């Protein structure tokens, strides 16, 4: 106990891992990374070494107990990690403890001193601060009995700690929600346990990472989705770990329609997220297009993500309202990305959007529609996606317009609204209104954080010029709830309505 002092944490350089571990791995301790086959243990371990070497100037040792050295080097090359070069420059050293092709004969008692001494020798000669052992279960398969191997693993990890090396030890598990590791080594091996999962749910694979324990220190709990990208490696998306600490902007920007700006009390705040909810054909895409055009015409960069229409359709429709998207794209002001929501998992979508925002640095972001994403994943994942996206957009001060299609023509709640409405700063409702047998469109601002707004439900029309906001509806009730009913208007009002005076 006397030896234990408050551990300092060292950053790993793996995107998002510092966040969920609250600073990185405890220095000079052993961290066990446990996961089923194909959950990304080796990638995480290799990335820990690569980032440590390239970003923090450390040196590392990789003890491979399962795969051959050549195979590991080959497998991570496509990620742009040149392990050969790191070995050549003396920053990385492999210790080959992979099974021998013809097996090993055993006669009498033995221990794993050979491995221990090789590790100690390697640490002394290279001055390594990092060590990876991948994966420890292989020792049980190659050597036995289990009690000996447990004792030897304990001896090795103790020696590693004594040398002050920060180590990652990987172990396999058979079930995604079961014992931590196959051979139950975690209790004595590690001060920190991280679990990687690759769960198939609703026909989608979803990778998650969980910091199970971190002895003597705090960390974020629960599972966080992550992705393994062919170019960039592991990205953990610490969605619910995000803090609500965005600064607020008082700069107002325009919808692209003076009438709408007036309804919203003078326009949107630059760092706001606003949701446009309406039935199909209600004018959401037009509103989004107008919002984009307003930005582009003022020389602002706009990122438009379309999940329901093709690029050609979008450009044509914009053209028909006199907005030249093609030209803005050529000028580098507009970026249109059209994709099927099914093209990838939500985590990948989120990551892609974040990357686009980081590289393109738009002032405005349009997502048409967020509700299209509902069908790709279970509700919980969708909620995480929405939270991750909105918090990122806010942090980057991108004024974002999300559209949501209501499930019924008459309106009603969608999953999107249930999860997104509390996060958004402004909500615009578009609804069909039936009055005296005629379908009309209504528009209402039902929420505008930090500002006064029009409380009336106004008529909304679309023509070749675009959108127009008209007079408030009178004598109609329950429009928002989707079941408008007329109160008895005076005869003169009825006549005026009929002849559209």
């Amino acid at each position, binding site marked *: 106990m006397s030896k234990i002092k408050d551990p300092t944490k060292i950053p790993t350089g793996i995107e998002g891992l510092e966040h969920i571990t609250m600073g990185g791995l405890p220095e000079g301790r052993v961290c066990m990374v446990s996961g089923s086959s194909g959950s990304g243990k080796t990638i995480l371990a290799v990335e820990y070494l690569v980032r440590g070497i390239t970003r923090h100037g450390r040196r590392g040792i990789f003890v491979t107990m399962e795969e051959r050295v050549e195979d590991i080097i080959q497998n991570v090359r496509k990620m742009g990690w040149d392990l050969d070069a790191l070995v050549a420059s003396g920053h990385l050293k492999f*210790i*080959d*403890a992979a099974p*021998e092709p*013809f097996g*090993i*004969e*055993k*006669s*009498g*008692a*033995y*221990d*794993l*001193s*050979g*491995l221990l*001494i*090789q590790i*100690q*020798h390697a640490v002394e000669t290279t001055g390594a601060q990092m060590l990876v052992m991948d994966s420890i279960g292989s020792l049980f398969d*190659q*050597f036995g009995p289990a009690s000996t191997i447990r004792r030897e693993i304990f001896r090795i990890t103790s020696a590693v700690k004594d040398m002050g090396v920060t180590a990652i030890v990987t172990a396999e598990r058979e079930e995604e929600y079961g014992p931590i590791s196959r051979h139950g080594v975690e209790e004595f091996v590690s001060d920190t346990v991280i679990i990687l999962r690759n769960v198939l749910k609703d026909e989608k694979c979803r990778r998650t990472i969980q910091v199970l324990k971190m002895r003597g220190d705090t960390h974020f709990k629960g599972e966080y989705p992550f992705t393994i990208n062919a170019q960039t490696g592991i990205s953990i998306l610490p969605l619910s770990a995000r803090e609500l600490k965005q600064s607020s902007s008082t700069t107002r920007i325009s919808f692209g329609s003076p009438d709408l700006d007036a309804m919203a009390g003078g326009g949107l705040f630059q760092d706001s997220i606003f949701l446009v909810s309406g039935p199909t054909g209600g004018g959401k895409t037009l509103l989004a297009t107008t919002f984009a055009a307003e930005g582009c015409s003022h020389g602002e960069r706009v990122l438009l993500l379309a999940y329901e229409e093709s690029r050609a359709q979008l450009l044509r429709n914009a053209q028909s309202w006199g907005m030249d998207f093609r030209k803005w794209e050529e000028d580098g002001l507009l970026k249109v990305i059209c994709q099927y929501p099914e093209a990838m998992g939500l985590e990948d979508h989120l990551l892609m959007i974040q990357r686009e925002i980081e590289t393109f640095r738009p002032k405005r972001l349009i997502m048409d529609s967020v509700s299209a994403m509902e069908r790709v994943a279970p509700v919980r994942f969708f909620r995480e996606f929405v939270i991750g996206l909105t918090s990122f957009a806010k942090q980057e001060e991108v004024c974002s317009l999300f559209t949501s299609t209501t499930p019924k023509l008459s309106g009603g709640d969608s999953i999107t609204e249930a999860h997104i409405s509390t996060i958004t700063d402004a909500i615009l409702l578009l609804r069909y209104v039936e009055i005296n047998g005629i379908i009309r469109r209504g528009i209402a601002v039902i929420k505008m954080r930090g500002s006064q707004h029009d409380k009336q439900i106004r008529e909304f029309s679309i023509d070749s010029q675009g959108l127009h906001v008209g007079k408030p509806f009178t004598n109609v009730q329950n429009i928002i709830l989707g079941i408008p009913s007329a109160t008895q208007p005076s005869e003169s009002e009825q006549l005026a309505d009929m002849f559209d005076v």
Partner: protein
Amino acid sequence: MNDWGKQRFRLFVVGESLSGKRAMFNFRQFHKRFFDGEVELEVVDILQNPEQAEKDRIIAAPALVRVFPPPSFKIIGDLTDTAHLRTFFGLDKDGFDKEGEEDSHV
């Protein structure tokens, strides 16, 4: 006559460890009894020569490696299980070659 006379072995031990001593003793006994001194044995202390241990990929110790003739093989342990050694080397309990069974353990 057989090829045993040309055999060269390398025995990896850890310092003055008892298991290393046992392995050395057992191997000497074994080859004295069955090969009559026609075996060359190099004892390597892993602590003194970790580079050689790395080259021969020594994970467990003690470990006996046949250096020559090929194919190379490795036997780990303190070699107390002589019955297993005899089987492995294709010898019967009296030390004679067992016809046609040499390859069955490789």
